């Protein structure tokens, strides 16, 4: 499979990259690891005139510990994160989310954390070759006016938010830094996502994700990531869930849950907090209820956008949510033990 033609730009530093991005506007696309972008280009789903390589932007490839937590350059490879023992020990939920991405030799060495967070949405009707799509009218995401994933069609795109890294990071209150030629802004990771299937990121054409910051976790906080797949590797999630819980003694004092791979963006489920809060950590009934709430909240967003049947995916939201919460709870306890 050949790539369509494009011009290649290789800025030497961030300033130059931002300058080029500013000039090229929507005709330019950022090339980080390329593991998702190049597939989309081969499939004729996107046609950038310029690819702006981040290869030489060494400023984006550092992992830095600060007083408040961790700063990770957007260009840090997944493999580098997985090599980092500190991350493994102190942010286990994040670590396991990164480990769950794709398969080591596919994504980990070339794939970057910024690339994973900025991954475009997916759909079984969109992420196909031009040949496949040539049989039907273009869908909303491809610039047309229909949605094949929504029964009866829809005027908006019902694609899935696929990032494995984002749900648990959002649960942890991670922030991202975004830069353009004349501006720099920091926002909660959650705000990076528009929940609009056609263009799931809020980034302007001249903006680039530069850094991810993750706050320190106190010892009574547990984080976890759960991903349900058919196979043990390669697969995109059927459902994923990131969870964070904080305990005080035996009691839950804070609970966050973010569901991935179900909706057009990451789906925070704030309703679980009142259910779990002030209850004992081992309250099975509360966890059961939290899973059900997650399922009921997320259910409405399920579209026919992946090959697994909707009914199954809905049920799995509850199961995956519960498993993530339980694992986070046990880690909150485990950290307390230490």
């Amino acid at each position, binding site marked *: 499979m050949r790539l369509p033609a494009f011009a290649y730009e290789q800025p030497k530093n961030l300033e130059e990259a931002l300058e080029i991005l500013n000039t090229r506007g929507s005709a330019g696309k950022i090339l980080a690891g390329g593991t998702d972008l190049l597939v989309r280009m081969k499939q004729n789903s996107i046609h950038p005139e310029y690819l702006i390589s981040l290869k030489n932007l060494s400023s984006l490839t550092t992992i830095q510990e600060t007083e408040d937590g961790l700063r990770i350059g957007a260009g840090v490879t997944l493999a580098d994160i997985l090599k980092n023992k500190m991350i493994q020990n102190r942010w286990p939920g994040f670590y396991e989310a990164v480990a769950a991405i794709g398969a080591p030799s596919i994504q980990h060495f070339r794939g970057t954390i910024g690339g994973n967070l900025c991954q475009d949405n997916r759909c079984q009707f969109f992420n196909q*070759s031009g040949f*496949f799509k040539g049989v039907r009218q273009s869908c909303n995401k491809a610039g047309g006016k229909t949605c094949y994933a929504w029964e009866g069609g829809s005027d908006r795109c019902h694609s899935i938010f696929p990032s494995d890294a984002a749900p648990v990071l959002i649960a942890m209150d991670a922030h991202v830094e975004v830069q353009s030629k004349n501006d720099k802004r920091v926002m909660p990771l959650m705000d990076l996502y528009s929940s609009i299937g056609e263009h799931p990121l809020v980034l302007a054409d001249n903006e680039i994700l530069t850094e991810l910051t993750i706050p320190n976790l106190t010892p009574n906080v547990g984080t976890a990531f759960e991903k349900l797949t*058919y*196979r*043990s590797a390669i697969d995109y999630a059927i459902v994923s869930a990131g969870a964070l819980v904080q305990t005080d003694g035996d009691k839950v004092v804070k609970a966050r849950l973010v569901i991935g791979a179900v909706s057009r963006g990451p789906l925070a489920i704030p309703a679980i907090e009142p259910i779990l809060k002030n209850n004992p950590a081992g309250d099975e009934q509360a966890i059961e209820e939290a899973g059900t709430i997650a399922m009921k909240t997320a259910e409405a967003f399920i579209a026919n956008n992946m090959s697994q049947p909707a009914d*199954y995916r809905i*049920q799995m939201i509850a199961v995956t949510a519960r498993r993530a919460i339980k694992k986070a709870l046990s880690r909150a306890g485990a950290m307390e033990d230490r």
Partner: protein
Amino acid sequence: MHEFTAIGKRVPKVDAIDKATGRAQYIQDVKLPGMLYGKILYSKYPHARIVKINTDKAKALPGVRVVLTGDDIPPIRMGVYKDNPPLKSGKVRSYRDEVAAVAAVDLETAKKAIDLIEVTYEALPAVFDPEEAMQSEAPLVHEEHKTNILKMPWKLHYGDVEAAKSESAFQVNDRFTTTWVTHCCMGTSGAIAEFDHSNNLTIYTNTQIPSLAQKDFLETLKALGLKEKRARVIKPYIGGGFGSKLDTYAYEHVCILLAWNARRPVKLTFDREEEFIATSTRQPTITDIAMGCDKDGKLLFRDITMILDNGAYTSWGVTTPSVMMLPISSLYRVPNVRYEAKCVYTNNTYSQAMRGYGNPQATFAIESLMDMLAEKAGIDRVEFRRINSNQPGDVTPQCFKITTCGLPECIDAVADKLNMDAEKEKGVGVGLASLIHVGGGARIYKSDGCGTIIKMDDYGKANVFTGASDMGQGSETVIAQIVAEQLGLKVEDVHVIHQDTDVCPWDVGAHASRTTFVAGNSALCAAIKIKKRLVDLGAEALKVDPKDVVLQDRFIFSKTDRETSMPISKLLRSSHFTHGGQMMMADHFYDPANENLGRDFKGNMSATYSFGAHGVRVKVDEETGKVEILDYVAAHDVGRAINPLLLDGQVYGGVLMGIGYALTEQVVSDKGKNMNPDFRDYKVLTAKDAISLQPVVIETIDEDGPYGAKGIGEPGCVPTAPAIANAIYDAIGVRMKDLPITPERILAALKKKKGVDSCGIDPLTDKEQKCD
């Protein structure tokens, strides 16, 4: 006992070194000077009239050399029913229909040209469900055929099933379904066609049937008016076969047509998406099955009706009922058998041969029902199988002559190794299933033969020209071992040549697990002829009795006096470079003494039969429906393990393919359109899904096999699905009747069992069914 020097040894595959160093050339790696690149345009509709094709823009594109449509080519018909032209004209019957083709100076130009071809279609009503297609008002896929039901004779009745039903103490019946799965050869398909100045064809192609493919290609030459011309088929290294290359495909004929029109070599290779949509699948089946036994557990009857979704055109898929009959009539002793199968045209993709050739689908139904019947009869399921096991000397109702039979030993080995009676945790279960398959060729064509030529050189090396095809399974290695053993050579002294129909003898093809048996016997017989001549010459040279002559370790010597010896190379030279000298060559055509099936489908199809039993321990996650394989035992009666290393390869590979068939793999079809034509969404198992497998080899030393060997290429994936389904039932008490057994189907079945308002997932619509 005689010590073997090559047989029974773990000899590495002879081409492994070329593959491990990147030297082996596959079709993708072959380039010819002046070569053009071909590309095919496929249909945009599952069923439509082709109103008009405008190729003007494509032809005008610089770099384009040839553009062809169905109207530009002579009448060529592929398939068992000759219903499939390589480029369609008039109408398309499935999304994979080839509508036009282009040859251009490079692939990019060819692709651009394809996009410039304008086709006007008029959509026709289509039919995707075989049961609907059988109704009289259904749209006709081939109007001239008058009905969508293929006129195939798949119907047999041995004994009296109705009488046996009334005599049965216990009976069960149910419906089982299987869907499309596909071979997923890692090397995608491709061909290069080239004509010489005298209009003879050379085609490099991935095929498992060089001799029959040659015949098909000659037909195409004839259609082009090239009556007396030659067709030479050359196989490069092939990146996996599994049955997919058992018929010629449209792309091969298109490649020839493009090359003929361009008078230049044309290369046409598939990308992965094309491989998924434009090569064929295993046949989907809907099986209604009933079985009964007497009060002691002896099987009395088996009654099966089956509907097969043939797709839009016929290939070998339509003949798979002939192999399904094998387990149906002859897996276990069943005195009364009835079977009827209907193959139905639909606007889906058409099916082909795939490892096991119908046997996995039939065995899934039979072995699932065996467990159900055992439970109903209150008999332990292992014991139930022992009671009914085939035995050596049996002649089955279909007149299959069971010579050697290691089935009882296989069942015992599984029960023992898997420790089936061990106490189980919640969600854990064990299951087993058996298999019978052809192990001594399969006479489905006029000949089941294979030819071998052996040419000895002057240096003690043998060139073996065989009709057998290697797609990665290791036939060249096994043949080299057999010849080396006979001639007292090292395996590396034997060079097996199998790539070229200009030099290799005829063979019906690499199918039916027949190569070790048939090509092995052929090589063995040719080697025996050489050996006899070497012995006679050696006896003369060493001045000893021919009876005392031994060939071993590249030497010829006397049994009575090892010092009286001579290198075989020297003996060869002395016979060659002498007045009246002779070339040391021999040939042999071996055609096993098996029989074509008669009109009643009786006949000893194979010279011997392979048996096996698989057992599996699974753990089912009752929340997610996911199945984990904890332990797997695969016991096979292989006659003799000529090469235990390669035998392992067939078993491990077959079993994992079978697990994919059981649990994860399916071509998702939305009104005839393949929705998952890629490895992300078509779930071939990954290295992380590899299982802990204990192979058990039962050697029964079959007297007709080369050194006693039987075929083992396909059996590994035959009983896998029912073994797993039986284990799932043992684990969580739900009977899974539709493949693949996906997590969502397990959850739906569990809900049904618990009385929640659901009746499982309908295998045809993939929707959860409410109970009526």
